[in-house]
């Protein structure tokens, strides 16, 4: 993208992160500019004749009218290539540890740093040859990167053509040319290990596919009740302290994905530190390597510049799409999309746009869609038969915990799964506090076969049964709240007990418990099956006149509820024991009333 670089504008007005410049002829909307003597990074957000309005991504304190504004000719872009995994980046893609080396513990502005290290050599192994015809998306070779085999592809915006030069196997930095592709029209295109991509533009693919595979998170209430698929989109709204962050951390740790992009967007610094402490130590069972090696962490914490918050989510999703294009399954978690939407509101209000609901601009829904709609399972570009996926999970922080506010409401329209967190459940320390009556997942029906094929159990049937019990219990609880539990019939009290067992024995899952923190799909299926069967086994007892107090006192009740704490390799044995115990106890009770 060659541009008449010499056109330099002049700052005429500064109001916080909004700077107006004059004399920026030829500048384009969304172009990145370098503002002021310190060359702060800014993006053109509006052009009105000679006036160019710029959103500056760093604090503008100390800037005055008359300072220069330089054009770059490029939109806000992400560097895509080996070296992303394991990094901790700020909202604009600058490595935070490198920033710390330069400026110490506190972040200062005006730092120019590339995302990808320029001095690291990657061992490149070509898989294409001189003379081959290639199209965008075709693989030229591979580079081992952390836990993945990183494919070096012809960039999506290159022209198809013939390889005229190809580097031999060896070690290269990202700046070295590893291939030259000549187009039919004779354009020589130098290809390096990395390329740049404008973050606000979705990366192209061949075809969008129906997502049908469960994204296993190991979190029971999610996988079983409100599942998300590989390539799906979900939102997790809830007031403070209801468990958004812990849930996203859990998903980032346990999801059976190849790559995880975690965007900390306007949230606490210590929560990023928490991830940074754990990710290098936790081992991914699939690859046997530290989780950090499959992760990209983006941190724009709540005290970092607000405008960069707006960019951070787009940067993150671009990284996710890039790994998807290699044929990998990627998960992007964003905590919190509300802060991102609020950054938009702040910008909009500074631009004096007409506000719509709660001060958000009228285009908020499109903006939210532009993020969630980049989720999906796709057939990749190029002439290979590979699929990749990006699943997106966004936390939503509704003000006052009220799910009727605009960000939650608009988000709901673009996601396939909705995990509504409930303050009352959180107060009860019922975690994950996902309310089973207010949440939904549109993927349930499609996953029926996944469960049968992968666990041997028809899990969606137990799910339905369990849901029935839970729903019935919730209306009975309303009654009990007024008349006391003692006034209910024993049939109804059994429903309450069965629901309690499902809640305590299945839905409640302690993220900090060594065993409970992760539960395999098979264990989930066997556990829920057992809990539902308890109800079926106890019903005839009640009908025969066994008092509820005796049923409650069966030791198998406690055993079943604590089965979740049994490690995977001892689980089947323990389950069998609990069921045998149940059978013995039930028969004894039955014999007593006969």
């Amino acid at each position, binding site marked *: 993208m060659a541009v008449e670089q010499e056109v330099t504008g002049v700052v005429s007005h500064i*109001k*916080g992160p909004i700077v*107006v410049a004059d004399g920026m002829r030829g500048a384009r909307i969304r172009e990145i500019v370098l503002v002021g003597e310190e060359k702060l990074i800014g993006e053109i957000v509006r052009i009105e004749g000679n006036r160019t309005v710029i959103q500056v991504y760093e604090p503008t304190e100390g800037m005055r009218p008359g300072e220069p504004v330089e054009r770059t000719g490029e939109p806000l872009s992400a560097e895509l290539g080996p070296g992303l995994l394991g990094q901790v980046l700020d909202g604009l893609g600058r490595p935070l540890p490198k920033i710390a080396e330069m400026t110490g513990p506190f972040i200062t502005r005006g730092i120019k740093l590339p995302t990808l290290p320029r001095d690291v050599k990657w061992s490149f192994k070509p898989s294409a040859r001189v003379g081959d015809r290639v199209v965008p998306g075709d693989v030229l070779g591979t580079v081992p990167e952390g836990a993945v085999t990183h494919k070096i592809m012809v960039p999506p915006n290159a022209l198809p053509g013939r390889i005229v030069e190809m580097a031999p196997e060896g070690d290269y930095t990202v700046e070295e040319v590893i291939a030259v592709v000549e187009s039919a029209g004779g354009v020589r295109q130098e290809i390096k290990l990395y390329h740049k991509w404008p973050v606000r533009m979705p990366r192209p693919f061949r075809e969008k596919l129906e997502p049908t595979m469960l994204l296993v998170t190991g979190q029971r209430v999610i996988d079983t009740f409100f599942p998300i698929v590989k390539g799906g989109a979900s939102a997790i709204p809830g007031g*403070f302290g209801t468990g958004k962050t812990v849930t996203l951390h859990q998903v980032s740790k346990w999801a059976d994905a190849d790559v995880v992009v975690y965007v900390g967007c*306007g949230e606490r610094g210590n929560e990023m530190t928490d991830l940074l402490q754990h990710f290098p130590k936790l081992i991914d069972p699939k690859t046997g390597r530290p989780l950090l090696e499959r992760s990209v962490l983006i941190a724009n914490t*709540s005290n970092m510049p607000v405008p960069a918050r707006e960019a951070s989510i787009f940067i993150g999703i671009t990284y996710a799409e890039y790994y998807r294009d290699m044929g990998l399954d990627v998960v992007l978690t964003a905590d919190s999309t509300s802060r991102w939407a*609020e950054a938009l509101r702040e910008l909009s209000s500074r631009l004096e746009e007409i506000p719509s609901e*709660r001060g958000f601009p009228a285009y908020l829904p499109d903006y939210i869609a532009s993020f969630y709609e980049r989720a999906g399972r796709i057939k990749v570009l190029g002439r290979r038969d590979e699929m990749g996926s990006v699943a997106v999970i966004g936390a939503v922080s509704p003000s006052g915990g009220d799910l009727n506010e605009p960000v939650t409401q608009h988000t709901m329209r673009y996601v396939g799964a909705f995990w509504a967190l409930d303050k009352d459940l959180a107060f009860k320390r019922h975690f994950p506090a996902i309310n089973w009556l207010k949440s939904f997942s549109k993927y349930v029906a499609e996953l029926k076969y996944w469960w049968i094929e992968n666990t041997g159990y028809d899990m969606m049937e137990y799910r339905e049964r369990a849901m029935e019990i839970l729903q019935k219990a919730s209306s009975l609880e309303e009654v009990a709240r007024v008349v006391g539990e*003692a006034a209910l019939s024993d049939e109804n009290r059994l429903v309450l007990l069965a629901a309690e067992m499902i809640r305590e024995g299945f839905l409640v899952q302690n993220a900090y418990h060594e065993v409970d923190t992760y539960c395999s799909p098979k264990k989930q299926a066997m556990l829920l099956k057992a809990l539902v069967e308890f109800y079926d086994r106890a019903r005839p007892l009640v009908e025969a006149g066994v008092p509820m107090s005796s049923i409650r006192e069966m030791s198998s009740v*406690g055993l079943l509820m604590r089965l979740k704490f049994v490690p995977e390799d001892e689980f089947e044995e323990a389950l069998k024991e609990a069921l045998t115990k149940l059978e013995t106890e039930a028969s004894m009770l039955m014999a007593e009333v006969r």
Partner: protein
Amino acid sequence: MAVIYGATRKGIRLVKGPLLFMEGVLEARFGEVVRIFSEEGREWVGQVLEAGREATVIQVLGDTEGIDVGVIVKFTGETLKLPVAEEMLGRVFSGSGVPIDGGPPVKAEDYRDINGAPINPTMRDYPDEFVETGISAIDGMLSLVRGQKLPIFSESGLPHNQVAAQIARQAVVPGKAERFAIVFAAIGLKHDEVLYFRKQFEEFGALSRSILFLNLANDPVIERIMTPRVALTAAEYLAFDLDMDVLVILTDMTNYCEALRELSAAREEVPSRKGYPGYMYSDLASIYERAGRIKGKAGSITLMPILTMPGGDLTHPIPDLTGYITEGQIFLDYDLFNRGIYPPINVLPSLSRLMKDGVGRGKTREDHMEVSNQLYASYREGTKARELVQIIGEAGLSKRERTYLRFADRFEREFVAQGFRERRPIEETLEIAWDLLAMLPEAELTRISDATIAKYHPKHRGSGEEGPEGKTEIYA
């Protein structure tokens, strides 16, 4: 810079609330401090809110009474800075950092921008050291850790000042040599409240280790925007330059937020909820996130903001946005207060997000977290039973519910309640907890593992000694 320094201008077009609109001043830098002089020689401080060729907007920091279009504005080229030095300890300053104790100006060791700079998240050290406050409800169930930001959510009329003073007096990191200091910021406080804190600090000999920044109720509202920032700037110096463990008390943050709203209205910004500006979240975060620890530094900032919830409403933007930023909250409750419980801490809506990392084996005691979870669950059962009594009367309760009712009463009177001068070591707090739990049948202790019960339950502990008498029988 030198050319710009000291540029003076006339040319005010309009004065509106705390804002001065003047013609474009090319030398004016965004955010810089200005001095404003009237012809009679009065002086104000202000800040450039908009810098432009055609217009410059200045915000006056303080009372604008007496400002008219005739004033002269002098541009300093500097942002708002606070002179910092160790000798600030023991001194009293205004809410903008000017000494008001009659002492000399501070001999500055450095000048620091009061807005600070964000801590690089990769340079944070995760807070995980237990701070013993000697208050059972906090130590036992809402443990504070060094470098945490933990606010008190209160209502006017509740003893939040006492609780804060007691924490300031009693807090220690067990086994750590102390380089302890208190930075206290009064934001729109009444005189007697300030006096109270001063007396408290004096009484326990902390005045010489404290810095006080006072913006009183009758001080300029706009100054309140600066007060927490000035206080945290001093605290950062003590913590990260002088290696001290600093406890920062900001009270009352509700007054701060109201000042922010007032300023926003004067700027005619589009409000978000209840008239508060849409950027209040980021603004509060720029204050609260200054708490913490930094890798390679011995000091820390532990932050305890106090706020009074307007109308006791937890969903009000002030407690709501605060809760989204801080690492938990300590909730004071009118109902407990009215029943004579001091400190009236309601543990149910309270939370310490960092507790799990600060307690347990090698930190407090291995049973700590389990005991805490059990107390929480059992107390909740008790309050549920209490609600039921309102509806069906105590006679309608089952035996189990009646036991929990008794448990809740004892929990409030024996565990939560304690003297203002009573300092309970964590061991004692856990002993009281076990004593209470022992009144429940063991089968009800579902949040505690069998191993822990065997080791710590009064009934099993020691050489065949019985637990406190009669307690298990209540259920029978």
